[in-house]
């Protein structure tokens, strides 16, 4: 039974503004693909037709940070690269979320050495960590769904006093 039918063309619907905002935000999460290493290959598979991130409204990989909502840090990050990543992160408009994809982005992984940041959470506010080396595209989809759940539980609307 469709919504229009139950309203019989003369009713209206009330909901909370939070619900509508979060519904819109959660189902159009445009990723900023910060592909740094082999995890980026799995990230491409995540966007491609087989795993199909467009089911979750996330197929539009935006290479401009100003148009994206969620940064997927895929791969190991050196100290030199960290400055570039932070700059891109700072250019993304709020609200924004961050996925640390794979062991290297989460903890430094096997790159336990002087040149690699031991986890991007040293300079980024990470929302979801994905385990694996590299993680399967399913795991990244799961991370995306966790971010959707997180958004849906947020209270984003505030009233000015």
């Amino acid at each position: 039974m469709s919504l229009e039918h139950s309203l019989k063309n003369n009713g209206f619907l009330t909901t909370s503004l939070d619900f509508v905002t979060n519904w819109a935000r959660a189902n159009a999460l445009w990723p900023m693909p910060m592909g740094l290493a082999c995890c980026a290959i799995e990230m491409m598979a995540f966007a491609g037709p087989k795993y199909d991130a467009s089911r979750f409204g996330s197929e539009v990989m935006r290479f401009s940070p100003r148009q994206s909502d969620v940064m997927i840090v895929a791969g190991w990050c050196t100290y030199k690269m960290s400055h570039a990543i932070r700059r891109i992160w700072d250019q993304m408009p709020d609200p924004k979320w961050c996925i640390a994809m794979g062991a290297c982005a989460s903890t430094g992984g096997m790159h336990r050495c002087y040149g690699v940041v031991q986890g991007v959470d040293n300079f980024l506010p990470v929302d979801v960590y994905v385990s694996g080396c590299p993680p399967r595209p399913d795991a990244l989809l799961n991370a995306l769904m966790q971010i959707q759940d997180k958004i849906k539980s947020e209270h984003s609307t505030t009233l000015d006093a």
Partner: protein
Amino acid sequence: MDRAAKKEAVVKAIKEKFGVAVRDVSEYTGDTKVLIALDSIHDVLLFLRDEHHFVYLTDLFGADRFTSEDRFEVIYNIVSLKTGVRLFVKTWCPEENPVVPTATDIWPGANWNEREVWDMFGIRFEGHPDHRRIYMPEDYQYHPMRKEFPLLGIPGSIDLPTTTPDTE
């Protein structure tokens, strides 16, 4: 004359020309390594390029032998394009003031390799045209491939980006 014989001939020619400057000749898995005294290394390399057509510098790298004497090693991996002979020419330098003459005037391609050796081991190359670090930040204080350098680096020695607090 097969390649092994050609290689022997080259080593013999170095020995005849430079005598005691050739400190050691060793062979391992088919590769011949010639250890040259530090003050003759530049002459030997120039002699090999000009007289034996070793025009191709495949690689130039450093090593930390971690010995009390002659701690650092610089290795030149060169190929003669006329005979196909590959030779590893090595030289040792001391821990205090490790300086090796540059090979950039012999093979210009040695430029970045020498910068890498300087970056990683702290070996200076006298006469190098652009003696800067190549990988690590320019103001970095340490040489990470030295054996005493800790695996995870010196904490706080490389800056992370400033993380401004997220505004609501």
